[in-house]
C-alpha cells in the first residue's frame, strides 16, 4: 500500500516537474507550406538547423513540405489534424496573414492557431528605373495625388497581394485618394516585374529589397524608399526610408512561425522562448546576413501585431473592392 502510494506520488511529481520545464522529446517537425526552395522552406530548414546547433531540440528538426493554396493546405492541416501537437512549427510570413485577411483560407481565421514569433524580415521597397524622372518618393506621390492613374506599378504578387498592398499603404499614408484606380500590373515573379521597369514600359516597381539587390548593384534601378522604421544596415544604408520623407508607411515581409492552437501552454511558452533565443543567437545572425534577411521584431506583442496586420489588410482590400 505504502509502496503504491509512494510510487503514485513519484509519478505525480514527475509529471508536475515535466509540466514546469516542458522540453520537446522525440521528433520535432516544421511544416514548410511550399515546395522545396521557397522562402518558407528556407525558414524551416535554416531555423531547424540552428535550433539543433543551440540544442533547443532533442534531435534534428524534420522539414515537411506541404504546398498548396499559398499555405492554405498546411494551415488547414494544422487546424484540423494536428490541433494539439506540441512539437510542430509551421513557417509563415506576410503572405499567410494577407490570405487570412482576404478570406482565401475558406472558413479559417488568424485565431485558429498560436502565433509563435518572427525570425527576421525582407523589407518592402519602391523603385524606379535609373532613367526615371522621379528622384524621391515625394515626387512620385505628388504625381499620384494629382492623378492616381499617372504612375503605373509592377510587382510580383497578384492583385491585392502583398506587393500591391505596399503601394496602397504608401499612397494612403500620404493621402492619395482613389486607391482602386492606381494601376498595378502583376507578374509571376520580381524578375519579370523589374524587367518591365528597366525596359521603361512601367513607371515603378514594388517588391522586397532582396529582389532588387542584383539590379541595385548593376545600377539599373534607383530605390526611392524602403518601407522600414529605420535605414537598413550594411550596403543598403544609402536608401532613405519612407518615414524620413514624411510618409508613414511600413512594409516588412516578416518570416516567422505559428503552431497548433490546442498545444499545451508549457509547449507554447517553450517554443516562444526557443524562437526568441534562436533570433538572438550568433548563428542566426550569420544565417540572416548570408541570406539577405534583415533583423525585425514587431512593435509590441506578436499576436497583437498579427491581429493588427490582418485588420489593416482587410480594410485596404475592402477599399480597393477586393472584398465586398
Amino acid at each position: 500500500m505504502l509502496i503504491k502510494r509512494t510510487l503514485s506520488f513519484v509519478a505525480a511529481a514527475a509529471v508536475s516537474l515535466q509540466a514546469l520545464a516542458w522540453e520537446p522529446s522525440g521528433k520535432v517537425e516544421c511544416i514548410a507550406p511550399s515546395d522545396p526552395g521557397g522562402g518558407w522552406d528556407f525558414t524551416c530548414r535554416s531555423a531547424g538547423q540552428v535550433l539543433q546547433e543551440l540544442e533547443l531540440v532533442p534531435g534534428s528538426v524534420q522539414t515537411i513540405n506541404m504546398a498548396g493554396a499559398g499555405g492554405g493546405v498546411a494551415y488547414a492541416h494544422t487546424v484540423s489534424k494536428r490541433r494539439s501537437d506540441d512539437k510542430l512549427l509551421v513557417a509563415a510570413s506576410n503572405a499567410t496573414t494577407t490570405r487570412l485577411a482576404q478570406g482565401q483560407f475558406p472558413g479559417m481565421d488568424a485565431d485558429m492557431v498560436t502565433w509563435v514569433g518572427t525570425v527576421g524580415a525582407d523589407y518592402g521597397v519602391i523603385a524606379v528605373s535609373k532613367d526615371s524622372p522621379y528622384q524621391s518618393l515625394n515626387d512620385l506621390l505628388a504625381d499620384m495625388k494629382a492623378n492616381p492613374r499617372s504612375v503605373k506599378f509592377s510587382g510580383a504578387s497578384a492583385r491585392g497581394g502583398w506587393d500591391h498592398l505596399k503601394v496602397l499603404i504608401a499612397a494612403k499614408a500620404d493621402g492619395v485618394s482613389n486607391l482602386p484606380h492606381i494601376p498595378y500590373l502583376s507578374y509571376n515573379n520580381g524578375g519579370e516585374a523589374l524587367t518591365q521597369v528597366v525596359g521603361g514600359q512601367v513607371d515603378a516597381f514594388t517588391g522586397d529589397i532582396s529582389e532588387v539587390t542584383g539590379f541595385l548593384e548593376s545600377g539599373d534601378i534607383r530605390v526611392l524608399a524602403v518601407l522600414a522604421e529605420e535605414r537598413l544596415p550594411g550596403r543598403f544604408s544609402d536608401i532613405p526610408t519612407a518615414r524620413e520623407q514624411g510618409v508613414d508607411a511600413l512594409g516588412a515581409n516578416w518570416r516567422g512561425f505559428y503552431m497548433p492552437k490546442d498545444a499545451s501552454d508549457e509547449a507554447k511558452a517553450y517554443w516562444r522562448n526557443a524562437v526568441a533565443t534562436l533570433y538572438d543567437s550568433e548563428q542566426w545572425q550569420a544565417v540572416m546576413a548570408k541570406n539577405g534577411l534583415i533583423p525585425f521584431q514587431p512593435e509590441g506583442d506578436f499576436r497583437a501585431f498579427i491581429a493588427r496586420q490582418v485588420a489593416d489588410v482587410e480594410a485596404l482590400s475592402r477599399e480597393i473592392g477586393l472584398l465586398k
Partner: protein
Amino acid sequence: METLQFLMDGFAVALTPYNLMFALFGAFIGTLIGALPGLGPANGVAILIPLAFTLGLPPETAMILLTSVYAGAMYGGRISSILLNIPGDEPAMMTCLDGYPMAQKGRAADALAISAIASFAGGLIGTIGLILLAPVLARFALTFGPAEYFALFLLAFATLGGITGKNPMKTVVAATLGVMISTVGIDIATGTQRYTFGVLELYEGIDFILAIVGLFAISELLFFIESRAGAGRKLIQVGKLSLSLKEVIATIPTLFRGGILGFISGVLPGAGASLGSFISYTLEKQYLGKKAHFGDGDSRGVAAPEAGNNGASSGALVPMLTLGVPGSGTTAVLLAMLISLNITPGPLMFTQNADIVWGVIAALLIGNVLLLVLNIPLVGFFVKLLSVPPMYLLPVVTMVAFVGIYSISHSTFDLYFMIAFGVAGYVLRKLDIPLVPIILGMLLGPEMEKNLGHALVLSDGDWSTLWGSPLAIGLWAFAALGLALPYIVGPLLRRRMKVAITEGPESD
C-alpha cells in the same frame, strides 16, 4: 569580347566534376531515350525532370542535365532510323531515307559514324549561332512591352500548327485544352479564384510538371501495357567501320549548310527540329542534284538531316532563353522546368542568372563533344540496348516518375492528378490529338492573358495599343503568316516527305 568572357565563366560552371558528371549522364540517357522508338526528346526531358527534383540538384546542374538529355535524344533518334528504319522521333524521320539503305548495304557502322559526326557539326554550328544571337536578342528584348509580348504569344499560338500539325483542328483542340487547364487557380490580374470549387489543392493552379510527366511518361506506360510488346527486337548486325577520311571530308560542306539551315528554322517559334531536318535534306538534295545518289544510301543524305535537326535543337533555345517563348515542344518542357526552379527566362536572365544561361550553353558545347566521343565507340552498346524489352524499361520510368513527383510536393493529391493526366494522355493519343500543344497552351495561355490585361491597363483600356508600335505590327504580320503558311506549305511539305519516304528503300 564580353560574350567570350561569359562563355569562359560558363565553362567554369559546366566543367566542375559534379556538373560534368551530370552532363555525361544526361548525354548517355538522352541517347538511350532518343534511340528507343516512340520516346522523343520531349518525353526524355519530361521523364528526367522528376529525377532532377529527387536528387535535389541546384538549378544550374538540373538545367545542364536536362539540356544534355535534350542534345542526347537528338543524337539517339538516328540510331533506330538507320538500323530499323523506325525513326526514334519525328525529326529523325529524314535520316531513314539514306541511313537505312546504307545499313542494308552493310554499311550501318559507317552510317552511324557519319550521323554522329553530322550531329556534332550541326550541334556545334547551332550552339555557336545561339552564342552569337542570344545576347543580342536579349538586349533587344528589353524593349518588349505587354503589347509586344501579347503579339509574340499570338505568333507562338499561330505557328503551333507547324509543330505537330497533321490535323490542324486537333492541334487547336489540344491547345485549347491546355489553356483551359491553365485557368484553374488564382487569377493574378483580379486576385479572384477560378474553377477551384473550394478545393484548397487547386488554389495555386495545376502544376505544369505534373501535366507533363503524366501526359508523356504515364501515357507511354499505358500504351505499353496495351500492346504488351515484351519481346524486344532481334539484334542487328552493325558491321565494321570502313569510313574513309575522304568520305568524311566530302560531307563537310553539307554539314555547314545543314547546320545553318537547321539553326534558322529552330529559332522561328513553332517550326522546330522536324522542319530543320526536312529543309536541310530537301535543299541538299536539290543543290547536289545528279552529283549525289540521295535515297540510295548516300552518306551526305545522312549528314544533311542530322546536321539540320541538331542545329535546330540549339536554335530552338534562342527564343526560349531570351524571350521566354518556347520554339518547340522540348523547349516548352525545359521552360516549365526553369519556371519551377524559380528562374525567369527572358532578357534579364542573361544578366541576373548569367551563370545558369552560360553554364547551359557551355554544357551544350561540352555535351556535343561528349556525345561524339560516346557515340563512335559505344555504337555497338546502344544497338544492344535497342533489343532490351520495354517490360524492363518502362517500370523504371514509372518508378522515377512517381518518386520524383512525390518528392516535389509530398502530396498524394499530386500523384492522383498525375495518373489522371496519364489516362487523359492515353485517351488523347488514341484520338490522335497531339500532346505538345497542351503543354504549350498551359504555358502560353496565362502569359498571353496577363499581357493583354497589362497592355490594356497601361493604355487605360484603349485596344489599339495592341498594334501601336512597329514591332507589334511586325509580330502581328508574322503571326498572320504563321497561321496561313502551314495550310499552304504544310500539306505540300508533308506530301513530299511521304513521297520521299515511299520512294525510298522501303518499297524495294
